[in-house]
């Protein structure tokens, strides 16, 4: 008889805390099964394992710790997960029907490699779970949706994190899930981490912020983005950008919103000096309210914006900043 199968949640974290994507992925996992097992692979990440164990719905946390798991190297992590799914889990009387992780650069890098090692397919960017084997995902930059049925014995899914409401990050759960430490596998030594260039920022994280203000080519320079930073800081907003603004070097790559950048769905998205290429729209069209500010009244962004304001952003943005202060809408400072 086939035993009860579990859903494996591959947690994304930075060895200190869980990433936002993990909470949304957990929400998706709960739509598939009550038997959710979490796996965390990292270095000196015991606290993160403990944080996971406190989350609702998680039955058990497996945890593995080694220096070569510090930097999310795809080769070592995918190898560990594939071995865990194929062999190690059986020692704990576990078999898996699904492996889920967020459709972030972490998940997009690692899950297809796990699929390759298991020689199965993968469903990318799941937007909706119809049943345990049927899912909705976007194609053609989100212009069409496809409903697909997975025929694999083990179903690998990356989850579009904006499509699932994260379970609360702080759980009032009385009993915490058991934590089991696993032995690491030897490093494959195929890749080596050199560095991670990251700009420190006090602003909210782009993919989980309630308000996002994005700038495009219309900002004209790196310096002019300061206008958006001032407005963002008043509203407690995150800053995004169009591909054009990133290509022009106004802001770093991790600000990019779009088909190949980040996908965001905040309560309020303010597009400033962004014309609205389809590749950008696919990354923000699920925002609750969209505001477009652009001097070109024919810009395609106005066709999807709830509120459009045609005019010179260099007058409008400072006025908006002043008026937010006057109206006492400041979230910060």
């Amino acid at each position, binding site marked *: 008889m086939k035993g009860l199968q579990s859903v494996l949640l591959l947690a994304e974290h930075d060895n200190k805390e869980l990433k936002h994507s993990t909470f949304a992925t957990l929400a998706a996992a709960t739509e598939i099964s009550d038997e959710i097992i979490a796996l965390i692979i990292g270095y000196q990440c015991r606290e993160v394992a403990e944080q996971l164990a406190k989350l609702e719905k998680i039955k058990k946390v497996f945890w593995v710790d080694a220096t070569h798991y510090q930097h999310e190297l795809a080769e070592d992590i995918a190898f560990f997960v594939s071995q865990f799914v194929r062999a190690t889990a059986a020692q704990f009387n576990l078999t898996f029907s699904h492996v889920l992780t967020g459709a972030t650069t*972490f998940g997009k890098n690692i899950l297809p490699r796990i699929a390759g090692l298991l020689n199965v397919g993968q469903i990318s960017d799941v937007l909706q779970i119809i049943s345990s084997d049927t899912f909705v995902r976007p*194609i053609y930059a989100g212009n*069409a949706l496809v409903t697909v*049925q997975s*025929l694999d014995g083990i179903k690998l899914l990356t989850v579009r994190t904006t499509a699932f409401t994260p379970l609360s990050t702080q759980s009032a759960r009385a009993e915490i899930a058991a934590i089991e430490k696993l032995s690491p596998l030897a490093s494959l030594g195929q890749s080596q981490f050199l560095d991670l260039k990251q700009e420190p920022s006090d602003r909210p994280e782009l993919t989980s912020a309630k308000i996002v203000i994005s700038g495009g080519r219309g900002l004209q320079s790196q310096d002019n983005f300061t206008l958006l930073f001032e407005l963002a800081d008043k509203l407690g907003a995150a800053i995004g950008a169009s591909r054009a603004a990133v290509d022009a070097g106004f802001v770093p790559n*991790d600000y990019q919103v779009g088909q190949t950048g980040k996908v965001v769905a905040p309560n*309020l998205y303010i597009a400033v000096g962004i014309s609205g290429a389809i590749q950008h729209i696919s990354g923000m069209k699920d925002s609750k309210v969209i505001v477009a500010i652009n001097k070109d009244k024919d810009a395609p962004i106005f066709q999807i914006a709830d509120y459009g304001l045609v005019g010179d952003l260099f007058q409008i943005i400072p006025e908006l900043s002043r008026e937010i202060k006057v109206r006492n809408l400041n979230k910060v400072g």
Partner: protein
Amino acid sequence: MKCLVPVKRVIDFNVKVRVKPDGSGVETDHVKMSMNPFDEIALEAALRLKEAGHLTEIIAVSIGEQACQETLRVALARGADRAYLIDTKEISDISLEPIHIANILKKFLAQHACELVILGKQAIDDDCNQTGQMLAALLNWPQGTFASKIELEPTQKKVTVTREVDGGLQTLVLQLPAIITSDLRLNEPRYISLPNVMKAKSKPLDILSLKEMDMPLQPHTKVLKVEPAKSRQAGVLVENVQELLDKLMYEAKVL
């Protein structure tokens, strides 16, 4: 050292796709087709590595119907040295998924040894973002996905790849042979000159039959339905900042 660049024929990125009324897929008849833009970037990266003296040959490969020859001719015109079409017409009963493509490429590489494969990070039709990583797993090679910079050191048998990740830019050193997938900012592909289009006509383009490659390909997914995404409607234009804030506060209630 040889480099393989797989290229996919997709609906041109400027075309607005239309879903077929029966929900079976999107309309491809009489629609402009082009090389997947990410594959153009992958090919350009290979061309620059060859121009820098690091590569001896660039092989372009496409898997699909006869019309993919057009895409391969474009690859040759851009500077690929030779091209292969893996013709799928005799197995048209199965729609090819990334895991199939990865397995076919693995088999191709067993016959055409390369130490580097550069692919587009995703195709703009299915947006899967899987094939490169799957191929890396099947070959047990390291992977540098979403690359914005590549530094090849063939004598050291290594390649340094800077990757665009959610947290910023990550730099890795990979042992060769390796898989790289291209992100948008890796380069800007060159224009094709007319003389190069002419030259491409005499470059070798061989056709292999997927059926003769004798690969058991089982479907991993079944498409049940394709539908257009809900589109947003245009809202209202406001006159000024005051009106905008009024709307956001009292109508949309998001401030």
